[in-house]
């Protein structure tokens, strides 16, 4: 399932409820019992995922990531949006629409 949302710096996202997460070294394994599927998030995706426990804007996520990792602004934005699009596609995060 592909996400229909087009993400930009102002998009706000949050983790989807009902996921079970287990540490897998520096990665993280996510179990979605309802779907009968599991996922392994690599270090980059894990870093993004951790920042979505509460609703966060893409710009805030990028700013937080750049505090912890040596990455330039353009690369960070590009990688973050790519990760978020994948997480959206798998239903691991959801977009919070304005006003909701």
């Amino acid at each position, binding site marked *: 399932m592909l996400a229909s949302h087009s993400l930009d710096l102002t998009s706000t996202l949050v983790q989807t409820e009902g996921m079970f997460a287990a540490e897998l070294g520096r990665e993280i*394994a996510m179990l979605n019992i309802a779907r009968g599927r599991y996922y392994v998030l690599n270090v*980059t995706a894990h870093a993004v995922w951790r920042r979505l426990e509460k609703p966060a804007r893409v710009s805030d996520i990028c700013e937080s990531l750049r505090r912890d*990792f040596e990455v330039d602004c353009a690369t960070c934005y590009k990688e973050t949006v790519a990760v978020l699009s994948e997480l959206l596609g798998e239903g691991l995060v959801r977009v919070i629409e304005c006003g909701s």
Partner: protein
Amino acid sequence: MRKCRSPVGEPDVWIIVEVCETSPSENRYGPSESGAFEISVAGLGRYLIRAGREIRLTRPEDASDDELRAWLLGPALATLLHQRGALPLHASAVVVDRKCVAFVGPCGAGKSTICAFLAQRGYAVASDDVLAISRGPSGMPQAGAGSSSVRLMADSLAALGANHGEHYGRGLLGEKRVLHMQPGPVRLMALQSIYALEDSSDCGHGEVVKVSSADALKIILDNISRPEFANELGCFECTFALAATVASQVTVYRLLRPRTLSDMATLLDLLETHWFRAKARRPRRAFRER
């Protein structure tokens, strides 16, 4: 019903056997009216597993002891371990330098055969079929020694020079015979490594390949004993978390080897060499941390 006093103190698990007139007419598993988890095997017996501490078996007098034992040490034990929050791995294992080395793979992959050949070289068999894995006091995965009897096909027995394997089975045992090995130590051991057996015709005499944590998790999840019971018991999240711990703390390898019994000595040499050469590798990082 007969109760035996344990030689090492209060038993960890009670196994209570009761004789009845008839066996179940159909297979069934799931929660019973009494709150225990029930496994009924048509024509054999009924197991009630309760609270990770008790297995109550009801059987007719003439039911096959070996078949009953296979269900007890297989699905019934796996259920009990799920109830305890432990991970029942469908594996055969040996003891190497006081640590546990496990072999996983589908039925007929050769797990028991490799362990039986290793036993001939002096390694104690830690378990066959179900290996109990739990978290130790430090959080590291540990394995509990289980049954030291291995189940082998006739060609494996012949290659071992042990044609005296007991029982010509059916049902869960299939065509396998049971070979009773020298029991290993009755204790918990650190889980050193896991080898996933894979057939390969283009790997020479054999090849050992370390896998990533993500692939290790898949291998472990694919080899959980009776995962459907964990779902029925509502404890699959716990099982999943422990599987992730094992995948991140224990080194998991693919063991590629030609599917033949004639070159087993070379394969065992490869394994023994690998056990003394394996080194941890540093993880790769996507971003460089400050």
